[in-house]
């Protein structure tokens, strides 16, 4: 069962800030989902089938550089740019 603390941990990893009053809704539905997932445990698999994937990558790209042509269109999509940089609140790297 998912505890509120665990939900907070998941929220931190996913960078979601669900308000306190809504948390029970999520805990509830997530627990229902976790119940459904319990079925996974019960499936027994033959050891022969343990390779994860059979298909191989067939798409390999030649090393030909192409200068991007959409920079100005992309800047139009951007919430905030200054002198072609994307701007975020200051990040502090040192403790």
């Amino acid at each position, binding site marked *: 069962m998912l505890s509120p603390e665990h939900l907070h941990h998941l929220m931190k990893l996913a960078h*979601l*800030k669900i308000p306190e009053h809504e948390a029970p809704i999520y805990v509830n539905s997530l627990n229902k989902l976790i119940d459904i997932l*319990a079925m*996974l445990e019960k499936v027994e698999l033959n050891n022969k089938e*343990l390779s994860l994937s059979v298909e191989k990558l067939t798409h390999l790209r030649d090393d030909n550089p192409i200068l991007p042509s959409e920079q100005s269109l992309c800047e139009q*999509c951007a919430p905030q740019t200054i002198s072609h940089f994307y701007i975020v609140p200051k990040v502090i790297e040192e403790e």
Partner: protein
Amino acid sequence: MSQPWHLRSAADLGRALRRREVTSVELTKYFLNRIDALDPKIHSYLVVTKDLAISQAQRADAMIQAGEGTLLTGVPFAHKDLFCTKGVRTTAGSRMLANFIPPYDATVTQKMYDAGMVLLGKTNMDEFAMGSATNHSYFGPTSNPFDLNRVPGGSSGGSAAALAAGLAPISTGSDTGGSIRQPASYCHLVGIKPTYGRISRYGMIAFASSLDQAGVFAHTTEDAALLLSILCGVDEKDSTSSYEEVPDFSKSLESNQLYRIAVPSSFFAALDSEGQAEFRRVLTTLEQMGHTVSWIDLPIQDYVIPTYYTIAPAEASSNLARYDGVRYGHRHENAHTLEELYSLSRTEGFGEEVKRRILMGTYVLSAGYYDAYYQKALLIRQHLKQVFAKTFESFDIIATPTTLSAAFLHNAHDTDPVAMYYSDLCTVSVNLADLPGISIPVMQHQGLPFGLQLIGRPFDEATLLNCSAQIERALPWHSTHSPIAMQEVV
């Protein structure tokens, strides 16, 4: 007395265009007119691209005049708002992208433009393709043209409803766990999801990368075959797209080849008595046509839903991490710290269902849970592929109901959103096993449409389309129209 344009198939419209009975501009205006008058009732479109449509129609008319193009040149279409359209707002049904104007076209979009098809507009959908009713759209729900109190299905509900209401002759959708086939079932349409890798995912906003696949809604098998041929093909921009040859699917419709059809008893058993009676009626018809129908044991129903709801949310949680308010999309105003920027932009931008699935995906991938959930689900998926492969050694097609009943009422699952996940029961295994699947509108439940699903071998869409065409000849469905479709517009 010929039928009104919106009750005819896209191929028919194409033939009329080529006979110069009508121009693409005229057809386009016809549908735009209908959208204007009738869409408020069902809310299938999020944006109508009037000016673009007219200019594309003019170009298409020139192509037809010059003897260029294909049967679908000049035919208008509705496009699920999951596909990027350059210069045209693309929202994925979400507040996160409410004002997003892509700087590029999806490969699917480009192919349709190149074929001379005409974009009528972008259709409503469950946010980021997560849902089965088109009731999780930031922009409000879509209603089923057969019964406005009911859902059209999801996540491609807008594209299905637009077609069923006669607001477009053909439309596109995407299918991750049933999002084309289920709405097709609820809206009396042909809905096909080809084999994973057939259609490029470049420009299709990602939900679950290993399951997502674009597909088609149509009134007839011929229409589905025609558009599928245009959309399929390898794309160097999508590493998961397949190099498998693409046949001209419209050539595989005429023959009356006979098939060995397998019917899994467990899905049949999940139907109620009316559903079972309907299903038996269809099976009898198949036998009368000469096909061999055999009941098989396919004991997968217990684990397909848990497997799907492990893999899809996991991939989604990672695919949706890019929505952080930095380079595009919704950004929380006046965020003081980076953490605020991220968490508030995302919390505001995503709806409840999306947040739920992101959290679920984070859970199944997180340390201590990965092996038991995600890793296990991947192994079960391989096992499932082998189960299907074994079945296809003795059979050509697997037939199931697409859904267990007709469309449900609008708020039927509001108190228990997780219960709605089970409406995907018949469809998810097809995505998990990378197989092609088609829903055809030959059954009814309580007076409302519900569909027969045919599942085929990998890359064997031709067999599905041929069988569908045969069924279409034996059990024609074209006289059933939604009440909205029956409404004429001056």
